[in-house]
């Protein structure tokens, strides 16, 4: 059996020099198609909808194939040394910081509109005619669901480090269940709310902020789901699971953003403290 490896190929450094891959350039085209077609769709240009579907499928496929390559390189080819693990962990942390900045920009818009409400909306926040959602109803339950899911995934993580496979699986399943419950309840709230995205600047910032957050919840759930699948398939060891740690960090980030949303967009706006 020829394994294509001999002494002259000894790698005298701990880094991973990746093989040439088509996914970065494919992803850049896919993202461009998706961005332009989204604008075309929203502005009513012909074929905007079809191209948007194409763009979304290309992005999702590109991501899947790229991540699949990373799993092959690490789990099956063993390229992830301690140094590579450190680099990837830093990369994931920086990515989460960039996502945080996206939320900062939306929170900026929210505070710009709410701290000095324009006279055109009645000089008050929430604007006249807007019936806000009761923050002590479903939004409170959603907060408890996200905090609990954070506890479950922490339990799963430490069980994983200990080598307790059963508890790691149990904790991950509970996290995913609570995440799905959160998404379902948010959908219910969206459908039953008395105001839409087109109801003044309040509707816009409310649905843009909670919508962007909801999208992140869905992505975070998928991330944990993929890592859970890999856990089941024995890809993971108790000392090497940076994918799982990335998913957990992303999930905690999603949880913290929700806490800020709950405090400022739900509680504060409904409190009458303005």
């Amino acid at each position, binding site marked *: 059996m020829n394994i294509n490896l001999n002494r002259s190929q000894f790698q005298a450094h701990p880094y991973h020099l990746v093989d040439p891959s088509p996914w970065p350039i494919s992803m850049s085209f896919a993202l461009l198609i998706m961005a332009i077609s989204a604008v075309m*769709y*929203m502005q*009513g240009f012909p074929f*905007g*909808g079809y191209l948007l579907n194409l763009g979304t499928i290309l992005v999702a496929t590109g991501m899947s194939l790229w991540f699949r390559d990373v799993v092959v390189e690490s789990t099956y080819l063993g390229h992830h040394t*301690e140094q590579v693990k450190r680099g990837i962990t830093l990369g994931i942390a920086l990515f989460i910081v960039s996502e945080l900045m996206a939320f900062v920009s939306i929170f900026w818009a929210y505070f710009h509109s709410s701290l000095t409400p324009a006279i*055109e*909306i009645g000089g008050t926040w929430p*604007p*006249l*005619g*807007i019936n806000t959602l*009761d923050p*002590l*109803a*479903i939004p*409170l*339950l959603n907060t*408890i*669901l996200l*905090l*609990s899911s954070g*506890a*479950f995934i*922490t*339990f799963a993580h*430490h*069980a994983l*480090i*200990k*080598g*307790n496979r059963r*508890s790691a699986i149990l*904790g991950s399943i*509970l996290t995913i269940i*609570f995440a799905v419950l959160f998404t379902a309840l948010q*959908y219910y709230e*969206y*459908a*039953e*709310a*008395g*105001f*839409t*995205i*087109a*109801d*003044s*600047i309040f509707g816009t910032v409310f649905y843009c902020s909670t919508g962007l957050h909801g999208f992140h919840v869905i992505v975070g759930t998928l991330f944990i789901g993929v890592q859970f699948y890999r856990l089941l398939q024995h890809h993971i060891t*108790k*000392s090497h699971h940076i994918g799982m740690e990335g998913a957990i960090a992303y999930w905690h980030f999603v949880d913290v953003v929700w806490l800020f949303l709950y405090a400022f967009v739900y509680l504060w706006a409904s409190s009458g403290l303005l």
Partner: protein
Amino acid sequence: MLARGASRAVVRVARARPSRGFAAQADNVYLGNPTKEWLEKQASVEHHAEETTQLWRKISFFVAFPATLLTALWVRRVEAEHEAHEAHIKEEHGGELPPTPGYDYLNKRAKPFPWGMNSLFFNPHANKDMNEDSE
């Protein structure tokens, strides 16, 4: 002869070879032993993980679950109150919710959505149907 084989197997098991090579346990005064340090760090992390797992197991089952259950019951009560209040308002108004005020910043439509006049999560019970021609 069978007995000899069996006793050899027992001795093999009892000797309990180390899981890594002997170099992993070696001490070099000048250069240290990175493998040994890593193994020791792993062992301490794993040992600590036992207590942390127990802590978060307890938090999960004795705090998270009860809090979720109690909040769910509380929310059920609040939502029931809301519904009763809404029904009362509908009754007073003659079977329908009072229309939202006609402020120009509400139900804003500079142009229709790509899928029509109503928003993505349009609910005829809670939102105004913009397809109906009114003023």
